[in-house]
């Protein structure tokens, strides 16, 4: 592993990923953008696991995929080990892909059904011309063993395996090139709970064994708490809170995080009866037409008359390592502001005729 002395393996600055909305028959007209990721900055340290949570459609998968340049960033910088990926040519990116990999959410869609497992796991070696046929076969055998699959799995096809086993195959493929950085895009959400634990443990074992850095995307707060060193919370294309994972669960600062955590049932009937979940009103607004200023103001239980609706809050460090994007975070922490139940607020409709959500 080449090291340039920097503690951060990945640094993201002002990353934006917009998907254009087009209409027209022959010549496409650009009529708007789905702002899946809108001005996001964070860093991932070497050897750590950064958890990324948020509800469906908030842009967390898009962010993970954009980091690997699977989607073209609209603006911003992605610095991987000192190199700005957005400035590299196609062939340089292709070479760098050896060092960053991804594991997908759906283990049924992420493996080519017409390729044998051996071919799938060996593909990274083949496309980079790194091994002869025999070397590749041995490496595939080792990789399958590493992720806990029998060696004869190589001659079989994906449809012969269960979800958990397919996820192991996906992991073996990601590890084939000895990467430094792995984006795990909700790798356990499609699995049974009993299998989830195994796969998460496997992720942890592999991290120690191969000195991996993870971006672990999930919507399951318990899973993220278990595996992450730090957690970033995403809402509608922006990061609203970053913190060490213990601090986030013990003392959340952003109203969105507070609401999310208050919704977790507590497995103790006495405590559970006293728990007062803060229910969020309405649905996630459309990322094609996000609320102005603070994006959460349409649903925020702590919303105030001033600032929230006319000034976008920046991510600022309130405690060491604990940043939050809320104007009123100090007052909320001090208990000066109380949450109130509110009805859903409709986002002002701006220039969006006939927009449909893009397929995920």
């Amino acid at each position, binding site marked *: 592993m080449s090291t340039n002395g920097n503690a951060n393996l990945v640094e993201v600055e002002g990353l934006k990923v917009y998907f254009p909305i087009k209409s027209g*028959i*022959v*010549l*496409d007209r650009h009529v708007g953008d789905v702002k899946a990721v809108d001005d996001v900055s964070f860093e991932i340290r070497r050897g750590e696991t950064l958890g990324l949570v948020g509800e469906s459609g908030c842009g967390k998968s898009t962010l993970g*995929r954009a980091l*690997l340049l*699977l989607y073209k960033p609209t603006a911003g910088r992605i610095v991987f080990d000192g190199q700005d990926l957005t400035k590299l040519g196609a062939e340089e990116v*292709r*070479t760098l*892909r*050896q060092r960053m*990999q*991804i594991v*997908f*959410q*759906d283990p049924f*869609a*992420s*493996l*080519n*059904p*017409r*390729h*044998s497992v051996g071919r799938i796991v060996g*593909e*990274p070696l083949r*496309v*980079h011309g790194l091994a002869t046929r025999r070397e590749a076969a041995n490496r595939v055998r080792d990789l399958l063993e590493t992720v*806990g*699959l*029998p060696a*004869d*799995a190589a*001659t*079989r*096809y994906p*449809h*012969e*395996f*269960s979800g*958990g*086993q397919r996820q*192991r195959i*996906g992991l073996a*493929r990601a590890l*084939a*090139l000895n990467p430094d950085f792995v984006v795990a895009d909700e790798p356990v959400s499609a699995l049974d709970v*009993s*299998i989830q634990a*195994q796969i998460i443990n496997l992720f942890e074992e592999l991290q120690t064994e191969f000195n991996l850095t993870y971006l672990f995307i999930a919507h399951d707060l318990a899973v993220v708490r278990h595996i992450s060193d730090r957690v970033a919370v995403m809402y509608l294309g922006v990061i609203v809170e970053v913190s060490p994972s213990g601090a986030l669960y013990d003392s959340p600062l952003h109203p969105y995080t507070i609401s999310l955590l208050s919704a977790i049932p507590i497995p103790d009937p006495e405590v559970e009866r006293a728990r007062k979940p803060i229910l969020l009103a309405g649905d996630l607004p459309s990322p094609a037409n996000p609320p102005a200023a603070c994006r959460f103001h349409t649903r925020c239980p702590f919303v105030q008359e001033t600032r929230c609706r006319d000034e976008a809050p920046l991510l600022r460090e309130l405690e060491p390592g604990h940043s939050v994007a809320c104007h009123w975070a100090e007052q909320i922490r001090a208990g000066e502001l109380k949450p109130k139940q509110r009805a859903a607020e409709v986002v002002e409709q701006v220039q969006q005729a006939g927009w449909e959500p893009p*397929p995920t």
Partner: protein
Amino acid sequence: MSVAEIEAREIQLEAPTGGLWADAWARLRRNPGALAGFFLVGSFVVIAIFASVMAPYSPTHVDLNALSANGLPTGPSWQHWVGVDQLGRDEFSRILYGARYSLVIGLVAVSSGLSLGLLFGSVAGYVGGFVDSLIMRFMDVMLAIPGLLLAIGLVAALGQGLWQIMVAVGITNVPIFARLLRGSVLAQREQDFVLAARAVGARRRGILFSHILPNAMSPVIVQGTLAMATAIIDVAGLGFLGLGPQDPGTPEWGTMLTQADQYLESGALYLAVSPGIAIVLAVLGFNMIGDGLREALDPKLRGRVGKFKEAKAEPPDGRLVPEVGESA
């Protein structure tokens, strides 16, 4: 023993099922309709290849003595199993030789249409954007003209002849395949395993040929078989309309139908019926294979080998399911 170990053990117990193509083939072999189709098409191919051995007479051998006293074609007899035509040529031999024309014209037309359609469709689907719009609008224009009409126009423009028919029928097939493949490529292009291939650093061309096309081919294979059936009908149709091969003596099924037209009133029904039956059997065979392939390649039936009968079986306890609208 952990769950993973149990699962691993289960996997070892099962015999490998092979790839998806092998699965599809296994399902196809268990489908009686497809087997009948294979039998029909198989006989059709054998006849086309061995026509010269199997036919009792030369297809162009004129025998005026075989005609009746007033010069009309005669019906089936021991010498001529399906009778003779207006020039005393043996109808049975002509049908056998006719298989050659239908098969060769159909094959060449469909394969050329398929390759061009594949090219246009995969480029349009994979490259997308302006190229896609350009290609597909052109294909739409071609699709707007009815297939046979387009073929007639092309033959009229190119002149009569064998290769002109092949070109005409082939071209009418191009937009059908292009459209089908474009849709298929578009669907596959967004699959996670394509993203995964990009993530490991595969090149665009490699992704197209090893990930997208193999998964996009199923509907094209089905359509290819069905297009053979349509091509045979189109060729016969062109022949019937007098746009067949230039030499009127050519034993082409459509041309034979046209020539039979004048002798129907004098009772030579067999001259029309026999090429008709030949066309029907050949087309039926290709259609049955096509339907069988459609079922065999359907990803929803993946891994279910030989379950066609169970799907149609009665309820297990033999009770009749009351139909909608039946009053108690």
